[in-house]
C-alpha cells in the first residue's frame, strides 16, 4: 500500500472541502466580512508552500531546512519583473517557477551529496546565502523588501479583485494537489517512496537514486516558487522575511502538525497554524507560547500529525 492511499471516503471528503471553499467568498460577502477572503487566499498559498515541502520531506525523505529560499525566490522574481514592467501573470508566474526550480537544481545537486544532519545543515546554509544576498542588495530593497505596486494581470481576469484572486489561488492549489496525487501513484512516486524507505536497496536494484531525489527536490522547489509568486500578489510585498530560516521552520511546523507524507498534510497544517495565529493574536500577544506547546505536544504524542490521528496519512505496516 502506497503512502498516498486514496479511498472513496477520502475522495468524498476532498470534494466536499472543495465545494465549501468554492462557496466561501459568497458566504463571507453575505456576512460582510470581505477581509476574510484575502486571508483565505493567504492560507491557501501557505498550504501550497507547505505541500511543496511535504513532497520533499514526507515523500522524498529529504529533510530540507532551506525551503524558504525557493518560496522567496518566487516572490522576488515576480516583484523584480513587475519593477521592470513585466506584470503579465502568464509570463511572470512560470518564470518565478523556473527561477525557483533552477535554484533548487543548483542547491540540490550540491546538497544531495551529503546525508542526514549534514543535508539539513547544508540546505540551511544555502538558504542563508540567498537571504543575506537579497538583504544586502539595495537595488532589491534590502531589509525593507520590494513593494509590488500592482498585482499581476492574467488575460481578462481581474486579479485585483480579491474574490477572483482567491479563485485563481484555489484552482492552482487544487490542480497541484491533484497532480501530486497522480505523481504519488506513478512509477516515479513509487520509486521515490522506496528510496525514502531503503536507499541502499534501491541503489542495489539499479535505480539512479541521486537523480530521482534531485528531481523530487526540484519539483518541490518549483512549487514553492509558484507559492511565492502567488503570495507576493496577495500581500503586495516581497519581504526578506519570506527567505528567513524561521520561515523554513514554520513551513516544517505546518507539515508536521498536518501530517508528514500525507497528501493533505500541508494543507491541514497551514490552515490550522494560520487560523490559530489569526485568532490567538487577538486573545494574547504571547500566543506563540501556546503554539510552541502545541507543537511540542504534536511531536511527543502525535508524530504523524493531525492526519495521523484520523488515519488519513501513510499506513505503517
Amino acid at each position, binding site marked *: 500500500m502506497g503512502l498516498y492511499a486514496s479511498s472513496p471516503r477520502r475522495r468524498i471528503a476532498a470534494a466536499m472541502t472543495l465545494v465549501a471553499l468554492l462557496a466561501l467568498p459568497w458566504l463571507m460577502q453575505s456576512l460582510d466580512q470581505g477581509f476574510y477572503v484575502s486571508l483565505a487566499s493567504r492560507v491557501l498559498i501557505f498550504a501550497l508552500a507547505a505541500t511543496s515541502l511535504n513532497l520533499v520531506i514526507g515523500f522524498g525523505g529529504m529533510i530540507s531546512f532551506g525551503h524558504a529560499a525557493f518560496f522567496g525566490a518566487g516572490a522576488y522574481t515576480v516583484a523584480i519583473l513587475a519593477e521592470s514592467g513585466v506584470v503579465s501573470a502568464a509570463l511572470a508566474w512560470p518564470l518565478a517557477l523556473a527561477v525557483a526550480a533552477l535554484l533548487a537544481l543548483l542547491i540540490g545537486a550540491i546538497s544531495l551529496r551529503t546525508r542526514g544532519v549534514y543535508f539539513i*545543515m547544508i540546505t540551511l546554509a544555502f538558504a542563508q546565502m540567498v537571504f543575506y544576498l537579497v538583504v*544586502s542588495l539595495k537595488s532589491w530593497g534590502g531589509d525593507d523588501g520590494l513593494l509590488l505596486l500592482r498585482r499581476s494581470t492574467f488575460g481578462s481576469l481581474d486579479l485585483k479583485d480579491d474574490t477572483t484572486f482567491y479563485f485563481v489561488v484555489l484552482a492552482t492549489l487544487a490542480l497541484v494537489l491533484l497532480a501530486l496525487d497522480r505523481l504519488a501513484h506513478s512509477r516515479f512516486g513509487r520509486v521515490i517512496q522506496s528510496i525514502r524507505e531503503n536507499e541502499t536497496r534501491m541503489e542495489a536494484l539499479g535505480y539512479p537514486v541521486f537523480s530521482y531525489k534531485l528531481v523530487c527536490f526540484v519539483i518541490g522547489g518549483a512549487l514553492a516558487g509558484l507559492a511565492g509568486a502567488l503570495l507576493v500578489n496577495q500581500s503586495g510585498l516581497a519581504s526578506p522575511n519570506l527567505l528567513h530560516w524561521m520561515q523554513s521552520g514554520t513551513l516544517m511546523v505546518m507539515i508536521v502538525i498536518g501530517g508528514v507524507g500525507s497528501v493533505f498534510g500541508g494543507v491541514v497544517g497551514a490552515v490550522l497554524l494560520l487560523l490559530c495565529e489569526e485568532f490567538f493574536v487577538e486573545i494574547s500577544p504571547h500566543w506563540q507560547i501556546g503554539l510552541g506547546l502545541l507543537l511540542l505536544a504534536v511531536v511527543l504524542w502525535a508524530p504523524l500529525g493531525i492526519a495521523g490521528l484520523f488515519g488519513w496519512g501513510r499506513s505503517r505496516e
Partner: protein
Amino acid sequence: MTQLILEQALNGLQFGLMLFLLAAGLTLVFGIMDMINLAHGSLYMVGAYLAAAVTQASGSFMVGIGTAMLVTALLGALLEVSLLRRLYARDHLAQVLATFALILIANEVVRMIWGAQPMLLNAPEALSGPVSLAGFFYPAYRLLLIGVGVLVAGLLYLLVSHTRLGMWVRAGASNREMTEALGVNVRLLFTAVFAAGAALCALAGAMLGPLLAVQVGMGESILILAFVVIVIGGIGSIRGALVGSLMVGLVDTLGRAALPSLLREFLSPEVASSLGPALASILIYVLMAAILFWRPEGLFPARG
C-alpha cells in the same frame, strides 16, 4: 592598512572564541546523542538576559555572569532531564521541531518577563577604555574576551583530553553504545555535558552582551553561526569546533572589512559597494558549502 587588518584580525579572533563557547556544547550534544538542538541559542539568550538583570540589580558584572552561568546550567539540566531526553531516539525532523518549539516558547517567556525592548548591559567601568597595543589602541573589553576565550578553550582541552571524564565524553561521541556497554553512565554524563554547555552559552551571552544587543532573537542569529562552525569542524569534535570557530570568526570579520575595498580594485566603485557587503555576508556559508563538498564529514570527524 596593516594596522587595520591587525585590528580586524583581533576582532575576528575575539568573535571566533566567543562562537567557540557556544559551539563546544553544541557539538558534544550533537556528537554524543545525535541530537539537533536548535534551543541552544535560547540558552545563550537566557544567559545574556539573566546576566543583564542581575548586573543591574547587584551593580557587579562578575556577580551577573556568575549567577547567569549557574542558573542557565540548572535550566539546561532541567530541560535535558524533562524533555530532550525523550527526543534522542527520535528522528532529526522531530528534534528540529521540538527544539524549534522551545525557541518560540523561550522567546515569548523572555518577552513576558523583560519586555520587547533590548536590555542594557554595560561592560565594567575599568574595562571600557582602550589599551595601547604595539602602536595602536584596542578596546580593553575585547581583549578580556580574547583572554577568557583562550582560557576556557585551554581548560576544555585539558578536561577533554587529559581527564577520565573527558575520556568518557570522547568515547561517548565516537561510539555511544560501546561506551555504555563498558559501564559508563552515558545518561548522567550527558546531563552533565548539557549543563556545562548551557553554562558556556550563558558565559558567551553575558560576555557578548555589552558588544551586541541583549534582545529577543539574539540567539537565533548566532545559533546558525554555531551550527556552521560545528559542521565545518566535524560533529562531536571539540578540536574541530575550535578550528571552525576561529575560521568562521576570522573569515567573517576580515571579509566584511576587506572585501569591499578589495573588490574596488577590480570593479567599478558602484558595483563594488553593492556587491562587497553582499559577498562578505555570505562568505562563511560559501566556506561551509565548499568544505562539505570536499569533506562531507567536516574537517575533524569524531566518528572514525
